[in-house]
């Protein structure tokens, strides 16, 4: 996936296809995303971190 596309997804929870090439669904919270994809199988869910912050949990 191109960086420009990922930039539009920052701060969102995203469900990708199994090969990670396609965005199947997105939402502002994990709870909302899981409701949207409750009938889907084997998607990969990922939180897209804000681009302007490094990650040090």
């Amino acid at each position: 996936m191109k960086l420009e596309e990922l930039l539009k997804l920052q701060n969102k929870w995203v469900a990708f296809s199994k090969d990670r090439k396609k965005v199947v669904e997105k939402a502002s919270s994990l709870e909302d995303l899981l409701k949207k994809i409750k009938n889907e199988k084997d998607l990969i869910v990922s939180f897209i971190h804000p681009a302007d912050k490094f990650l040090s949990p």
Partner: protein
Amino acid sequence: MKDVTFFYIPEVGQDLTTGKIFEVLRPKIPVRLSVNHNVSKILVDCLFDTGADRNLFPAAWGRSLGLKIEKGELVKTMGIGGKEIKAYTHKVVLFVQGHKIITEADFTDENNTPLLGRDGFMDKFEDIVINEKKKFVRLSFI
């Protein structure tokens, strides 16, 4: 011994001054969660975090499988910024590329980044290789 290798996942970074965007590669492992015999249909990318003492997952993930989060044992955890987070410990099963890991995880509403920590994840493997040059994590099962 069986190995599974996870190449770092490309994410996006942005320079605050110039606005220029760049690639940030992060060690994330897709994990399938199971609680009380309810197995998640989806996988969630979890950060492989050698700095994390324990596994820390978003509460919403557990709730989607029927977990009563607040019934777990209350624990407190602290991030690098010193912020204290309340979490609740539960017994879980994790599936990593089909390999079953019986362990515990702490669930919280206060952290968006699912973390795989040393106690409860990394200690379940015979060997772990982190190759920062080639950007992969290799887990070796017993």
